[in-house]
């Protein structure tokens, strides 16, 4: 896949081939065209210093091959932000990392030519060999519009090819066109981009020569939007879609996840029986199988998330959702599109952060990325469930509702409010400058292609497994080592298994670390065993539950839940007192609500913001927030119960 050395920051050009850059507005089918031309050879990389990416791949042409670079979608080449400046720098050859392309292929949506010819004019004015691809031509004609491609080509002075990109029609013509890329004409008379009135005249004149007929609005879209954008019906549909979103995650994904978990548990047992006991067996069983299992158990959920998001996006519903939600999101300084990212983060922040790619403003994107992890994600659920069970009796009721359920709901609410507030703070302070005016394009509803959906799911999922999976695997292995070493075989030789495990843990590296860190968390009521759990959970939150499980089993293998309740401080000022008192539990829950405890999220943040600055800032501010609120919660709860 990376025959020409793709790296995080630079995607290289195949030696000796002509490089053609694809330029066009968002929503024109440019990406579909790129994918069809380059197939699986494409690799994506960031431009240096900014968050936008470009993809590069090789396209086969009748007489050889051509490198195709897909530039970020843009409505105009006049830059409005550093992100867009980079694209212009690239095209004009001012970047060190990317040379100017040899030729420019401008992709225009034939249904909005009055607008997109403006971009075409700017492209022609650059002076590169240029050609034009018209997309959505089927839609143009279906909606009563028309265009004479030959006449358009004559008026523009460059070759023009018509396609229906997402269905693959016209692709062979584009390949033939690419064959001659080096000899595409350069516009001798650049269009008058400097003067607005003259440019409008140019556009009108060109389209008149091409006998362009503006298409009517899409009847189907108008009809559907009458419902979906209706203040009452639209909102109801929206709530239903969001509810369905959740249901699918928790209902459909859960059984699949259990199945996957079952498979890994089974393999764990196989390992235990066949590899005997001893360190290797334990390593394979706990670290390897457990680690890999931990990652893959996530997969069904993540795949479903990506699937639903990409279907909604491809159909065009996401814009409608953003339209309905924008007013609310605007209160936080975000825009309606951030809603999708936030919603996805309630399952897992990784797809949520990646969903911010659709946001044109880099500032909005970063604000969303920094605040999305505060949404209650599914990894926090097991922790909350254990802690709520310790805090609230099973049968307590709040009116007709279960108190435990209400507590869980409160945590979700807390996550949501915190997220919106933090986003607002970020927008108001660090990210204040460089505001782009809000706009949102509503594409007509389109039937997605299976190919497009599969691609939209496969690419990020594979990336998740490769990059994030590696990290979790490594961390799990390291944790295993920390908890199980030094081995202390001599001392534990005569103890029974539970006591032996307990002894080993207490005297392991992790134990030492836990005790070392204990003073820090003492005001919150955590003891060193909880601290070990916390250390482990900084890699992934669910690890806390399994670590506490190990601790509890060590105390009382028969009933871990009860064992946790019975846990007492082993030393220090509270020696003998219960560890899991109400204030401590509240503190722990608040800590988990706000702390950054997910290496996967950090890795994704790093990738999407193209720097370590933001993930580092996230860890810092979230730790402060977590510690502060946990302390506050501990103190207030202490006051309330006394």
């Amino acid at each position, binding site marked *: 896949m990376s025959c020409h050395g793709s790296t995080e920051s630079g995607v290289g050009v195949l030696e000796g081939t002509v490089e053609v850059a694809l330029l066009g507005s968002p929503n024109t089918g440019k990406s579909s065209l790129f994918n069809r031309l380059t197939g699986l050879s494409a690799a994506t990389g960031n431009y240096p210093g900014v968050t936008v990416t470009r993809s590069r791949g090789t396209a086969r042409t009748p007489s050889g091959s051509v490198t195709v670079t897909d530039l970020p979608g843009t*409505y*105009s080449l*006049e830059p*409005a932000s550093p992100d867009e400046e980079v694209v212009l720098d690239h095209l004009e050859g001012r970047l060190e990392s990317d040379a100017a392309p040899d030729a420019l292929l401008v992709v225009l*949506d034939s*249904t*909005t*030519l*009055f*607008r997109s010819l*403006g*971009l075409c004019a700017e492209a022609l004015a650059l002076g590169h060999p240029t050609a034009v691809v018209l997309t959505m031509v089927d839609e143009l004609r279906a909606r009563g519009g028309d265009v004479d491609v030959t006449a358009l080509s004559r008026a523009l002075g460059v070759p023009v090819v018509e396609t229906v990109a997402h269905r693959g029609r016209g692709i062979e013509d584009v390949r033939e066109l690419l064959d001659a890329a080096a000899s595409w004409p350069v516009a001798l008379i650049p269009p008058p981009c400097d003067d*607005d009135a003259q440019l*409008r005249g140019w556009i*009108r*004149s060109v*389209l*008149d020569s091409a*006998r*362009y*007929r*503006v*298409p009517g*609005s899409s009847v189907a879209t108008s009809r559907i*939007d009458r419902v979906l*954008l209706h*203040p009452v019906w*639209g*909102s109801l549909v929206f709530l239903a879609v969001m509810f369905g979103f959740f249901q699918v995650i928790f209902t459909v994904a859960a059984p699949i996840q259990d199945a996957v978990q079952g498979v890994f548990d089974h393999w764990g047992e196989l390992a235990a029986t066949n590899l005997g006991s001893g360190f290797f067996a334990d390593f394979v069983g706990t670290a390897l199988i457990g680690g890999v299992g931990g990652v893959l158990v996530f997969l069904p959920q993540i795949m479903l998330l990506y699937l639903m998001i990409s279907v909604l996006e491809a159909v065009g519903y996401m*814009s409608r959702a953003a*339209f*309905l939600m*924008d*007013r*609310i999101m*605007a209160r936080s300084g975000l825009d*309606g599109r951030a809603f999708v990212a936030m919603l996805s983060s309630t399952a897992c922040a990784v797809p949520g952060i990646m969903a911010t790619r659709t946001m044109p403003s880099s500032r909005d994107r970063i604000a969303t990325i920094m605040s999305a992890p505060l949404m209650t994600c599914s990894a926090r659920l097991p922790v909350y469930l254990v802690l709520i069970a310790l805090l609230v009796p099973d049968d307590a009721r709040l009116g007709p509702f279960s108190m435990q359920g209400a507590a869980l709901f409160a945590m979700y609410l807390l996550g949501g409010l915190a997220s919106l507030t933090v986003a607002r703070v970020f927008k108001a302070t660090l990210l204040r400058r460089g505001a*782009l*005016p*809000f*706009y*949102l*394009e*509503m*594409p*007509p509803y389109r039937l997605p292609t299976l190919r497009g959906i599969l691609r939209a799911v496969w690419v990020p999922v594979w990336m998740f497994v490769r990059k994030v999976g590696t990290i979790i695997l490594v961390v799990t292995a390291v944790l295993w080592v920390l908890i199980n070493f030094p081995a202390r075989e001599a001392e534990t030789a005569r103890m029974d298994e539970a006591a032996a495990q307990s002894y080993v843990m207490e005297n392991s590296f992790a134990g030492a670390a836990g005790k070392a860190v204990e003073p820090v968390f003492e005001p919150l009521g955590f003891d060193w065993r909880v601290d070990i759990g916390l250390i482990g959970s900084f890699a992934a939150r669910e690890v806390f539950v399994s670590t506490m499980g190990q601790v509890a089993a060590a105390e009382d293998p028969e009933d871990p839940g009860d064992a946790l309740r019975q846990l007492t401080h082993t030393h220090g000022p509270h020696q003998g007192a219960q560890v899991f008192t109400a204030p401590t539990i509240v503190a722990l829950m608040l800590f988990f609500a706000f702390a950054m405890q997910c290496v996967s999220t950090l890795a994704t943040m790093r990738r999407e913001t193209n720097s370590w600055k933001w993930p580092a800032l996230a860890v810092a501010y979230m730790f402060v927030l977590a510690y502060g609120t946990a302390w506050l919660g501990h103190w207030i709860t202490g006051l309330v119960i006394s």
Partner: protein
Amino acid sequence: MKRSKRESSAPSCATLCDVKPGEDACITLVEGALDPVVRRRLGALGFREGEQVTCLRRAPMGSPILFRVCGAEVCLRKEQARSVRVAEQTPEPVAAAS
């Protein structure tokens, strides 16, 4: 919606914000006073002087507003819509209509 009598002397006070769903309007001026970036971006989306705009609908809470311009459907928030001045639709010899 106010009707502007002459093209230049008395500036029309109506903005895109005042165009009701289902009504057409013709853009007379995109205010560049605050930020040239905003004006250019609006222009790139199709909100240019002389273009015909149709208001399609408003969001439940009044913002954003969905418009049809240059063959595409684009939403703007109230603040941006307010910075685009319009006049009632005048019949312009638009070349494309056949």
